[in-house]
């Protein structure tokens, strides 16, 4: 279920979004806010996948709001006035909706957001926090090239950084990562789909390295690798 929140100072606009979200199967509108500061407080505690945000609210400019969001969220701007629409593009928003918009146009915006969520390549950066010898380490999952298991330890091979050794099982690590992006390919290896250059002879090429593809993982891996989404 994809979680969404809507912020707009006009009640009718929120009602439209609620109605439209309920017509989809994937989007769950968790909350509606007409006060931006309440929305901000909520979002600090409860990150969501998609944020519907009115660009021109008198109390808080939607664009300023998007800049002070605690984490990057996929934003779909809404506006009644076309002159503000361009600013939505300048800000890395997924889409902007010019009110009034049809359900079909709304679906287009949602589909675009879903595409970005699945591809993992976007405004959404995710971090994992790991306990290491010297304390806690925060790692951007986009930097992970592949993960190698060594008995009780894991070695995270990272992009442009020294590898990180952490005491954890493959299973625990796998649970921390996005299942759309990270796949188990071998008893001792987890790889991110987006970093794969090619697969040949049961070897997965990532950067200069070759990672073996285990026979019991082959089928599910190829399915995930070839899937269009």
């Amino acid at each position, binding site marked *: 279920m994809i979680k969404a929140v809507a912020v707009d*100072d*006009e*009640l*009718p*606009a929120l*009602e*439209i979004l609620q*109605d439209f979200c309920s017509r989809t199967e994937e989007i769950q509108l968790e909350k509606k806010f*007409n*006060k*931006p*500061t309440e929305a901000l407080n909520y979002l600090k505690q409860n990150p969501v996948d998609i944020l519907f945000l009115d660009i021109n*609210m*008198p*109390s*808080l*400019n939607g664009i300023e709001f998007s800049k002070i969001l605690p984490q990057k969220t996929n934003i779909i701007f809404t506006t*009644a*006035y076309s002159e503000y629409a361009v600013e939505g593009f300048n800000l890395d928003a997924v889409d902007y909706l010019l*009110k*009034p918009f049809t359900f079909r146009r709304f679906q287009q915006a949602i589909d675009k957001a879903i595409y970005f969520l699945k591809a993992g390549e976007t405004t959404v950066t995710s971090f994992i926090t790991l306990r290491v010898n010297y304390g806690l380490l925060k790692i951007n999952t986009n930097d992970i090239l592949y993960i190698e298991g060594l008995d009780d330890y894991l070695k995270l091979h990272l992009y442009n950084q020294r590898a990180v050794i952490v005491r954890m099982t493959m299973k625990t690590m796998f649970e921390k990562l996005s299942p759309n992006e990270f796949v188990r390919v071998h008893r001792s290896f987890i790889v991110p789909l987006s970093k794969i250059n090619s697969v040949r002879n049961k070897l997965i090429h990532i950067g200069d390295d070759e990672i073996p593809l285990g026979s019991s993982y082959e089928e599910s891996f190829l399915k995930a690798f070839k899937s269009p989404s």
Partner: protein
Amino acid sequence: MQQEETDAELSYLKSQINPHFLFNTLNLIYSLTIKKSEQASEAVVKLANMMRYVLYESNKNFVPLQNEISYIKNYIELQQSRFGDLINVSFNITGNTSSNKKIAPLILIPFVENAFKHGVNAEENSDIKIHIEITQHELTLGVFNKKVKPVTMNNNEGGVGIINTKSRLQLLYAGNYELNIEDDEKDFYVYLKLHLYD
């Protein structure tokens, strides 16, 4: 020649229906139709009446007072539908409401629009008070709004609409009107008194 210039100036100054208001109202109606609300049809009629007034009546120098009052009423009601309980709006009219007098069209609305433009904020306690009093020969308009946190707007005594209206008042009511605007840090208050012509 002078008459032509005055006419030209007057038509230039006459405010058209505010496009933002038009789109906001269309959005309101859109949401009402999606909800299949009975208020949808009412909203359409209000908007249609407003547009009719602007398109066909506002090119006259003076129109029946009733029509201007209806226009303002429709405007306020549509705005209230957008925000519901979020804002406090009080609107009352006292005195001879069935007066046969005439008034310049769209002469009062810029002050009301201004209150909604600068006085509406879902975050704060928005407070707008509009009062109209009609006596035998005079109309008094009082508009009060609390100012919201300024975002990108510049607060120059209301902007273009009010500046234009001042010019129209001077052209149409010279010597027969009184306009006081009090613009302080937190509040905005307009007081307008007009002589009503027959």
